[in-house]
């Protein structure tokens, strides 16, 4: 696979190559990778990249994808305006 051209996190433009590089440097959870490179911090909140990164981690760690530590799921599911939360809209 063309890892340099394969986008894993579409919101933040993170490639598979960058993810693999961080895993090889010793970053071992989705949360750690997110904090260093912003994967999963965009508007979709990791709905696409979360599982793709989990797959890569599972391969390297030799564990089932289901055992990769998931970040917590928190509101809002979709971006919502501050004005809406404030009750103004």
């Amino acid at each position, binding site marked *: 696979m063309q890892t340099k051209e394969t986008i894993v996190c579409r919101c933040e433009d993170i490639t598979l190559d960058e993810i693999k590089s961080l895993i090889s440097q010793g970053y071992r959870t989705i949360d750690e990778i997110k904090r260093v490179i912003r994967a999963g911090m965009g508007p979709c909140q990791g709905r696409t990249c979360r599982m793709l990164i989990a797959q890569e981690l599972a391969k390297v760690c030799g564990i089932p994808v289901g055992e990769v530590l998931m970040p917590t799921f928190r*509101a809002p599911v979709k971006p919502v305006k501050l004005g809406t*939360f*404030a009750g103004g809209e």
Partner: protein
Amino acid sequence: MQKQANVVIIGGGIIGCAVAYELAIRGVKDIVVIEKQYLSSGATGRCGAGVRQQWGTETNAILARDSVRRFEGMNEELEYDRDIEFKQGGYLMVSYTQNEWNQYKKNVAVQHSLGIPTKMLTPQEAMEIVPHLNINGLVGATFCQTDGHANPFHVVDAYFKAASRLGVKFETYTSVTGIKREKGKVTSVQTTKGDIDTPLVINACGYAAGTICEMAGFELPLYPQRHQALVTEPVEPCQGPMVISLHYRLYCQQTPHGSFIMGVGDPHEPKDFNINSSWEFLEDVARQATTVLPLLKNLRVVRQWSGLYDMSPDANPILDEIPEAKGMWVAAGFSGHGFMVAPQTAVLLAQKILGQECFMPIERFGLDRFRRGELLLEPAVV
């Protein structure tokens, strides 16, 4: 994992990593940092990331002032391969009540006595700095251009890499299960990966510092308090400084990435370890933020999170050796502003532990102050 060490640091947040670096750069060998999860997984990685010198107590102001100088040159000093993203857009502290303004004036007098270049502004002048500021009812504002914010993940990463190059070992996903003492001295740290014999332990566990001290038979006067934050979608740069309103309990900054990060303090927050995010927070912070900065009502929230302040009775940290367990030091109780003072706090602690001359008196941060009732009460905490 190794069986012996000269120093065991518990906690892989900003304090633990910075102290590890400052000890190692002063020639201490064989240092191990124990972290329950991954580096900056606790309060550091959840903080508001602000760096301000506008404090009301001299202690906080000195630590922050000198830490700003360290942040300014940190990429070079620590030879960091990324960027700590230190942006000095200033802090604008806005005041909507006369009482608050009177307190701000006292704070500014403290800051000026220490050479911190804070300016006192009229509402009009404040609006020139932040054009979307609500000046309805605004009494005045204080502004310090050299305040700012940095990326906590990268600051920790920078200290981690620099300390690693100096030989410091980091044991992540490792929990401390006990502290052994003999004749009033600490002798060993028990962990989920085995015991490490050591004559020196530094407890840099933030909100968990009390739990660690209990293992050594000592009760710390600290308590955890949840604070929540949110981040919006990124937009073009439009707000230079961090805006703080103690009256509205709000802080709000625009990061170099373009997103806005903001939080409010909740006076009714119970003293416990809960770090779940709540919908009540989203409504509360949205109301306060759109009151102080009405333009932000159009920004979309993408994520919220929470973390724990390690509150001390006077909102100043504890930097001291535990009398019941010699060799065990506490560096905790930063009460929500540990990140910004960490660089120089780490220097102060390293100097004290190594018997070097301290750049400021460390005794002010002693445990004794609570027993004597001589608190260093900090009036400027959100």
